[in-house]
């Protein structure tokens, strides 16, 4: 063996990769400037971003926060920057933000909507985060639908109690009739009894109990509701009530019972075939003409009912999509286990169908929440209506972008949270093999 080798006998030590391939430079080279076409696109995009930000950022941050009118705002701008162009006048938000949030709700009672909102989160917690929150809180979630109107509208405490009693009456009738006769008769009887209670008897009950034991808090008229609070109120009610109604409608549409099926189909197709604006005009105008003159059928309640029906029809179709996506074997499997209809729906069908429909359901939620601003067209002072009213004040006439930016930010926060939650829920319920 000679000492001379013609090939290398030991490995060279590893060398660091060239500086142009790693770190920030490498990332930039690979992702932003990987060819002449991409380089041009990058430069154009960077310019576009710079252009937008160079307009928006100074406008947002070089702004006036304290002034009593637009004219005053402009004077301050002239004094500070020498130009009124490109500076926001946030003073209008500073002046009116409470009104934009609460409408004309009496200011010494602001704690009530705030408390309602906090309690809403508490009531939603066991529903939204069922694995992290004790399920005993569900009792509070059941009470909340009666507590919230009491807090928001005030008045006698017997109103919500008698409304809750309607469910007790229904349950009583159902348990008696379904044992004695049949389950179907029990259900029909329960609905009839509850409706009779709500429409006829509860008025007397509330009146009588109120005269015996007057407990209550200061009442607030619907007319005083407004601002973002109104959007949240309408949105929460429409969302909360439309989901169960939508499930029932979706099931009804797939039912073998002819009358039930066609009633559901008719309802869904009718409501979906009509624009929401039309329904709102029916609520605010036509009902006024149909009902006897002098009738005071609360305008917000009418709007709530219309929005709920509207979103329920959409919800029903979204859920039907989920039902249709389930393989037939799931239904047959449920049958073969000997489960009856409701058991099969509760244990096997609905959990899977709802999981499939989550993106669609949340889209509908977000849609209906944003649709609440349409009520400004029928003269309710929601946050957009108020923006118009604020502009009608001599002090603030002529101000636009600041108000719209503020309103947009409010809606973005709520809608974005809903969207993030739905993604969390999808991940949590992920059982597939992807």
């Amino acid at each position: 063996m000679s000492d001379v080798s013609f090939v290398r006998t030991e490995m060279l030590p590893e060398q660091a990769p060239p500086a142009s391939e790693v770190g920030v430079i490498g990332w930039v080279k690979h992702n932003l400037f990987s060819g002449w076409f991409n380089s041009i696109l990058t430069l154009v995009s960077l310019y576009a971003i710079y252009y937008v930000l160079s307009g928006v950022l100074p406008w947002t941050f070089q702004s006036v926060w304290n002034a009593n009118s637009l004219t005053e705002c402009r004077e301050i701008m002239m004094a500070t920057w020498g130009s009124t162009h490109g500076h926001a006048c946030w003073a209008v938000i500073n002046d009116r933000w409470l009104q934009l949030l609460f409408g004309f709700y009496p200011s010494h009672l602001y704690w009530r909507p705030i408390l309602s909102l906090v309690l809403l989160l508490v009531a939603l917690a066991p529903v939204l985060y069922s694995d992290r929150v004790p399920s005993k809180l569900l009792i509070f979630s059941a009470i909340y639908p009666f507590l919230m109107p009491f807090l928001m509208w005030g008045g006698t405490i017997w109103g919500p109690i008698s409304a809750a009693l309607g469910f007790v009456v229904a349950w009583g009738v159902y348990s008696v009739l379904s044992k004695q006769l049949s389950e179907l008769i029990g259900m029909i009887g329960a609905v009839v009894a509850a409706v009779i209670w709500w429409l006829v008897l509860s008025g007397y009950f509330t009146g009588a109990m109120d005269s015996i034991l007057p407990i209550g808090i200061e009442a607030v008229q619907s007319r005083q509701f407004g601002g973002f609070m109104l959007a949240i109120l309408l949105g929460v009610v429409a969302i909360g009530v439309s989901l169960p109604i939508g499930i029932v409608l979706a099931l009804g549409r797939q039912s073998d019972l002819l009358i039930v099926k066609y009633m559901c189909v008719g309802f869904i197709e009718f409501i979906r075939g009509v624009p929401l604006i039309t329904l709102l005009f029916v609520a605010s105008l036509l009902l006024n003409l149909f009902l006897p003159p002098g009738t005071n059928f609360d305008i917000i309640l009418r709007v709530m009912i219309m929005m709920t029906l509207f979103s329920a029809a959409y919800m029903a179709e979204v859920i039907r999509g989920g039902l249709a996506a389930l393989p037939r074997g799931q239904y047959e499997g449920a049958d073969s286990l000997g489960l009856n209809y409701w058991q099969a729906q509760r244990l096997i069908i609905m959990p899977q169908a709802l999981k499939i429909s989550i993106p669609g359901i949340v889209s509908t939620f977000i849609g209906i929440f944003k649709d609440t601003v349409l009520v400004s067209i029928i003269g309710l002072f929601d946050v957009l209506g108020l923006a118009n009213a604020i502009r009608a004040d001599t002090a603030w006439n002529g101000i636009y972008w600041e108000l719209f930016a503020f309103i947009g930010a409010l809606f973005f926060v709520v809608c974005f949270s809903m969207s993030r939650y739905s993604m969390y829920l999808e991940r949590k319920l992920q059982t597939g093999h992807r």
Partner: protein
Amino acid sequence: MKKSVILGAATIAGLAAGAAMAGTVDDVKARGKLNCGVTTGLVGFAAPDANGEWKGFDVAVCRAVAAAVLGDASAVEFVPTTGKTRFTALASGEIDMLARNTTWTFSRDVDLKFEFVGVNYYDGQGFMVPKALGVSSAKELDGATVCIQTGTTTELNLADFFRSNNISYEPVPIETNAEAQQQYLAGACDVYTTDASGLAATRATFENPGDHVLLPEIISKEPLGPLVRHGDHEWGDVVRWTLNAMVSAEELGVTSANIDEMSAGTDNPEVNRLLGSEGTLGEMLGLDAQWAMRAIKAGGNYGEVFAQNIGEETPIGLARGLNAQWTDGGLLYSPPFR
């Protein structure tokens, strides 16, 4: 929830309502509040301030009527109405009167079954153009692009005006006054046309109001006034004469400052009849003797209300013009209190 209570109440109220509909005066008195329809917001005419308190020229009429009937100028429930909801709200009884810068036209009065009780503002359609355009008369606007609110009488008036002058224009349809301001300032149209009072209010919000001029032509008659339902003449009389009381008070020199002094009795018998120290005018209306005094005290006489909300001292800066007293060459002319 509220639903049951309200539905229950609705059923009962419905049965009772047929009988109760008869007299709005009695309804209002029983309710203790006047339901008054106003706009959802129009500069100078009606707008809520930061505390939710309504203020404006139309609002003042509501307050005067409430003061006359109920003795309290704050006993008003302001019902915001849009151009689409206003007439149904009145027809259905949701509101007792409408004071929402509504033009008195034949079809609204006759066909829609309303009763205009008078005119509280004589308006008319005008044009605003940038000074840089160098136009001094609307007749020189041949070929101009015009911002115009769709579905209003202004649209029809505009078409008539241009056709009768044999010149052409290009309309830029817009939905609201707010949109119009932006479009006009952005140069999307050469001319903005709407009621002259609206033009003045809009121009007042511009950064440089001096760069824009209102052309001298007024091409339509827009008498704006409060209205009530057809058929309830007692109520119509109350609203009509409350408005007349405000106008007469200015003519007779009764102001909110000197009204207490004058109501004790003056040398002028008409003032005495108006303020209730003489005669039985209040009784004829179904009200007490001091009704007009309270109405005038609520916000002042017509001139004071005008000056406070839309007059020359305010940013809107409207001159009295047609809305001056007949003695000063205007159209305001209240029938005598006798």
